[in-house]
């Protein structure tokens, strides 16, 4: 990153993390091409708004990237409380109106507070653990307070009900707790408890349609026209693409509407049908570059807050990617989680760009104060 500095390119541009940004731009452009095809060969309604949103959120990410650390630390708890209140507001409005609701209509935009909660929980926990005295990392305070911080918003999101987002919040928070150095046996115990509770949750906690989705993951063909339809059609799209795909704009699964949600949750299947394994490997390669960069930023950070913040953000992006791709390839139940930077959808673009912005911010902090300096 430092090596990008040269005499010709002005410093503000040269200092940007181009090794991550260029692959990201390529991925977004590729995503736009796929969305162009998913719209039947048209920039509207998906591809153009995809690019515009990316542009807008890239500006937002740059703004985030320029924030000073002290300001971020200062704003962390208030931000958490505000987002939590927004979640509460969503729930209350939903109750008043009758029926569940996930978003708030702010007039100029539709806001999903649960999306905001994903990066915010990461920052909040990073801040909490960085300010927790090191000696207390193995005590109840390291477990109970973050537990409540995660539990309260997750409870509200589950009420919506939105299993995918809940899991994303738990995952982001959990990764931060793991990296914060909490005793390993707590995680092992939690894992065992979770495994034991899974059947109970499955039979008593999940809705009917969610149970079916889990079941069809194990045998999608059994109910090819019912709950397994999505996965079966997605696998047909990916499998029929072969190595080189059917060619741009030639995907029959997406164009003839066999593939459900070809522009959001199943955008990867839409892509794989037309671009084949080659396209799929490109997407995976870009994601691994971005995630590797993110983890490197986390490791290169000089203080605990930055470590945990960057790693948590990477993990949040990773969670989106992994769950979405496992789902479209028939290895995870159908959970409504879009693919970062490719799926059409403002909320997920916003969340992921917040994560990217936060990573760029930590990256800037690292550059300004190289590793090995003062520990926070």
């Amino acid at each position, binding site marked *: 990153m430092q090596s990008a500095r040269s005499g010709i390119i002005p410093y503000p541009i040269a200092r940007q993390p181009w090794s991550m940004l260029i692959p990201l731009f390529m991925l977004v452009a590729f995503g736009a091409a796929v969305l162009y095809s998913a719209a039947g060969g048209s920039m509207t309604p998906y591809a153009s708004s995809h690019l515009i949103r990316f542009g807008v959120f890239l500006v937002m990410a740059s703004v985030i990237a320029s924030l000073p650390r002290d300001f971020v630390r200062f704003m962390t708890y208030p931000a958490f409380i505000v987002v939590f209140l927004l979640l509460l507001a969503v729930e209350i409005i939903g109750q008043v109106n009758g029926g569940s609701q996930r978003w708030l209509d702010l007039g100029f935009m539709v806001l999903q507070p649960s999306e905001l909660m994903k990066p915010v929980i990461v920052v909040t926990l990073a801040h909490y653990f960085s300010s927790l005295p090191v*000696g207390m990392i193995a005590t109840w305070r390291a477990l109970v307070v973050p537990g409540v911080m995660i539990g309260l918003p997750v409870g509200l999101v589950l009420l919506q009900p939105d299993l995918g987002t809940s899991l994303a919040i738990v995952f982001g928070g959990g990764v931060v707790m793991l*990296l914060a150095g909490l005793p390993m046996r707590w995680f092992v115990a939690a894992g065992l408890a979770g495994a034991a509770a899974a059947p109970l949750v499955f039979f008593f906690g999940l809705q009917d349609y969610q149970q079916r989705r889990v079941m069809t993951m194990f045998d999608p063909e059994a109910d090819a026209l019912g709950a397994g339809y999505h996965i079966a059609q997605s696998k047909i799209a990916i499998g*029929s693409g072969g190595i080189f795909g059917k060619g741009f704009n030639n995907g029959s699964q997406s164009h003839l509407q066999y593939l459900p949600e070809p522009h959001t949750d199943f955008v990867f299947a839409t892509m794989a049908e037309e671009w*084949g394994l080659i396209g799929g490997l490109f997407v*995976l390669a870009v994601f691994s570059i971005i*995630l590797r960069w993110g983890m490197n930023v986390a490791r290169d950070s000089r203080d605990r807050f930055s470590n945990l913040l960057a790693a948590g953000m990477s993990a949040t992006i990773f969670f989106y990617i992994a769950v979405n*791709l496992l789902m479209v390839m028939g290895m995870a139940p159908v959970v409504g989680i879009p693919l970062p930077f490719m799926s059409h959808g403002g909320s997920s673009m916003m969340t992921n760009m917040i994560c990217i912005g936060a990573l760029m911010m930590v990256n800037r902090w690292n550059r300004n104060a190289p590793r090995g300096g003062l520990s926070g």
Partner: protein
Amino acid sequence: MKQLFRLNSGAKKRQKQRGSMVNASTLKHTFDRRAVVIGGLQYGVGVLLAVRMGYLAIAENEKYRLESESNRVNLTLIPPRRGWILDRDGAPLASNRADFRVDVIPERLSDPDAMLDQIGGLLGLEPNRIADLKTEVSQSRGFAPIEVASGLDYEQFAALSVRLPDLQGVVPQRGFSRFYPTASSVGHLIGYVGPANAEEYELDRNPILITPGHKIGKDALEKQFEQELRGVPGARRVEVTAGGRIVRDLETRDDIQGDPVRLTIDGPLQDYAARRIGLESGSVVVMDCQTGDLLCMASMPSFDPNSFSDGIGSVEYSMLREDARVPLRNKVLKGLYPPGSTVKPMHCMAFLKAGVQPSESITCGGGRRIGNRFFNCWSNHGRVDMAKAIYQSCDSYFYHFAQQIGFDKVAEMAKDLGLGQEFELPVTSQFYGTVPDPDWKFNKFGREWQSFDTVNASIGQGYYLTSPLQLAVMSARLATGNRLNPRLVLDGSSNDPVSYNFNADEIAYIRQAMSDVVNGPGTAGRGRLPFPDIKMAGKTGTAQVVSLSVSNGRTGPWKYRDHGLFTFFAPTENPRYAGAVVIEHGGGSGSAYPIARDVMTFMFDPQKGLDALKSLEQQWGGTAQERLEQRYAAYARERGATVTPPPRRDEDIFDRVEAEARVAAQQSEEIADEFVAPRPIANPSGTPPPDARPQTLVPGIQTPPSPPPSTPPSTPPPTMAPSPLSTAGAN
């Protein structure tokens, strides 16, 4: 260094977390270590995804490409044109005609009743047709298409086609429908076609069966030759969306028409015979004496296979159902009648084989004493030898010689000549009837054969039951002395019948006697052919169905009148054609042999035959088909809504008819338990009885028998006992 740290860390755990050991540096190390693990996990997931995708896209590519194609491409079958059914000269008895048609697929209709009302309005369907359709749609299994209308004109078709986007589940198409040029004349012979029902689809899961517009053979030859006639469906491949909308045509393959089936039937003769039966209920069978070819198998009254193929309407069904003359029964194969005197020449052949000389004679004293009982003849014939016994149809002669040689031998001859037998024919079913003998009676009723059984059977009464086809075969076999087997399909096979090894003199003798029936002093004097050089030989028969006390056989309720029968062959010296005519309840053989005469006239000189028919049809009010249509119109006007709906499956219709045919065949059996006294007036005058037009009986409601006449219609001969069923003849 790292190793050391791990040891440290382990020691730390064992020491129950000494706080001083945890400092910022160890936490940083923990972070680094765990970050590596998480990074590794992320790579692991990435590799897993890449491998999984490679597996789907390479190893399973073939499978998913096929599935994607089968998603994308929808195959629409085009019903094949059905093979024609031809007569022996290649003229079509069943062909196809191009038309516009409309089907509905019930499971795709959101509101079937409203949709049918709408279509009915567009096409101008009659209200009872719409009502039928609603019933049919509500009872259907859903996937099988139901024909709404066919034979539409282009305007109607276009009117429907432009509204198609709003008519989900309605399938208008250009296609072909089955056409039977001679309509009701070939109804029983050819059968008809209709959409496959659920059972047929279960049996043969061929997708063509549930393709809109495709029909399969439902009865008779159409059903028997289904596989030959069906052909190979064409196909239209189209690209469709998941919602079923057609995006574009990919390719179209034409259908291959089914193979034609060529029959031995002579189309014009079949039509002529059917029309000639006129107002009567009966059948005409004509066989070729050299090959066994069936030239004509007419059974009337009949149904119109054209309208059956469009779907059997409830009004039409009800009309055919309520007709006492059972238009749905193929009387050639499933009408069973006591053969009456028509078996007498064949019985004579049995006597000859048993060593009876033609010149041996008996005296008919208006009857004959057999054992210790006197049995009446229908007249007093005086001295009777074999020839006279045939042309005068003297019963006494047969009582005597059947008793003398034993009925076993006679029955053997009857079976040998085809009575009581089934023939190898491509028909859905044929009744084989009964040739009674002592064993048969004992097996069936557990009673011994009595002398009156011999007496009854010797003149073709009692338990004797034959179908018109069997009578025709018997006639042909007797006339030629060869074991002719009837055949119906002209498949090029040669038919080389085996000889019975009858003596040529014997055959000539019987031919001459049968010729005398028509051309000599016999019982069918008005049956002469209008040709100087061609003579027809034959034998009349009158089969009684109820005892003398119930009916005089010629007037009164139609159901109780005698059947009229006639077996024949022509020319006498060198028989070319043989056949049988059976008129149900015709009031005696006088109703039968004029038909045989005209049919044979037509055979040798069509114009002469047609002239005779034309004048008759003027009296009757049109051809058979015209009369059927008139009756239908009148019936529909009269009954309108209150009609019996047809059974849901077409098969039920004919199963029911067949069951009733079996019951009907038992009618004459009821009186067979006693001597069936011949009518004194059995010698027919040749004219049908004055009120020959039968009343229409509603089946199931038996008209009470008219009271028996207090005195017999004609004075019996002095020797005749007043009641033949009592201990006839003083002894």
